[in-house]
């Protein structure tokens, strides 16, 4: 689990991914990318693309559209990498925030009706349990996250998932969950705070 050290001359053996670098490693890769280092960016891509693409698939649902969204997001990561400030958050969350915003913009601009019809068929798109180190690492983390999500109230968890994975606005979430208008945003916030505190992230 050696963090990728961009300064070191020995890169991981061909064809063998090391586990995702720690946050510091990713931040360093972002910094190098901001200076135009394509090799560093390729490492960064390999360490984050499964989550970025998977998130895009969850939100936009169509794999080819998800691929477009992820591509746009990574190009934006490359273009703006120099603006990343590690004092203000992790590299992962910076990248995933970009991906999520683009994915949500995509589903909102697509005709809403199509998406509404298929809302509850989620999850079945070729989620092969794959072999990359990132995915393996992510799935270990995912177990912890799922456990943490179970510590939320049912309404908090549903509101959070509808918003984050389906791209609904809090107003839409309220109507889907039969909540009074204006309360879904509170459920989302409460849910995130509990998730944060349970997982011990965000200082």
């Amino acid at each position, binding site marked *: 689990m050696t963090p990728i050290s961009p300064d070191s001359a020995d890169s991981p053996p061909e064809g063998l991914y090391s586990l995702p670098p720690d946050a510091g490693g990713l931040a360093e890769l972002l910094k190098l990318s901001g200076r135009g280092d394509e090799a560093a960016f390729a490492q960064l891509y390999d360490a984050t693309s499964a989550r970025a693409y998977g998130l895009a698939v969850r939100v936009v649902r169509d794999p080819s559209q998800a691929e477009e969204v992820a591509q746009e997001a990574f190009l934006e990561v490359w273009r703006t990498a120099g603006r990343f400030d590690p004092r203000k958050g992790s590299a992962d969350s910076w990248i995933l925030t970009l991906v999520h915003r683009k994915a949500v913009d995509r589903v909102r601009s697509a005709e809403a009706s199509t998406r509404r019809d298929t809302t509850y068929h989620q999850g079945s798109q*070729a989620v092969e349990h794959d*072999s990359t180190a990132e995915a393996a690492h992510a799935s270990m983390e995912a177990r912890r996250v799922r456990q943490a999500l179970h510590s939320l109230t049912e309404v908090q968890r549903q509101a*959070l998932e509808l918003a984050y994975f389906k791209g609904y606005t809090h107003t839409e979430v309220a109507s889907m969950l039969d909540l009074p208008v204006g309360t879904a*945003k509170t459920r*989302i916030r409460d849910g995130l*705070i509990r998730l944060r505190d349970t997982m011990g992230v965000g200082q």
Partner: protein
Amino acid sequence: MNESLHALSGAYVVDALDDIERAMFEKHLPGCLDCQREVASLREATALMADDAAVTPPESLRDSVLAGIKSIRPLAPEAAGPPSPGEEVAGKPEDGSMDHVVVPLRRRGFHLGRLVAAAAAVAAIVGGAVYQPWQGEQNPPSATLGPADQVIAASDAQHYSINFKDGSSASVVRSPSEGKAVLLTRDMAPPPSGKAFELWLRTKDGVMKPAGMMKSGGDHKLLLQGDAVTATGVGITIEPESGSTTPSSAPIAMFELGKADA
């Protein structure tokens, strides 16, 4: 401040605000430290949820991303945070196309790479033209831009530029509202040995007042000392390294203020 705006932080982080609410919240954020902290910490929690979604992407994505970056030039880092000494910008911009430049800037037939890059960086904050999860919301421009960048970012910034025969260039950006002017140089030849460039602000009476020293060539971004609002010109002369109180030679460059490029 506004109770209902604070309550939007969670929905903001998961992109569950409509466009109007998002705009309102992003306007609120730079002035609210509590919301900035909360947004940052909740983003870390949100990112964890993506672990559950991880799927190996098709190889075609990797190919297109790595091919795509070859035609995109990374933006230069922002000169955010506490101003670095002399506000020099590290690194040297390569020439190339500048996308996303939204600051009006007339070019007089030469490439103002550094200035344009700086202006674009500022534009990204000020205009919100480029979506930056971390920037623009946690970096209120007035709080984190150095004084020189504030002049460049000012809505009333005026640009004056001079192109030298050797391909180097220099520009002055003046902002009446900030009361200051900034000198930007690009690829300046170094001063003769034992000498330095001295910068001057010319008063409306025609008197040259010392405005700063520049000891080397290359690329610089320097805030000029003195009252730039009433100044009628900015001059550069070659002086002893210790500087002079009045110019000892004719200026190598003289910017006439009042007839702005842009």
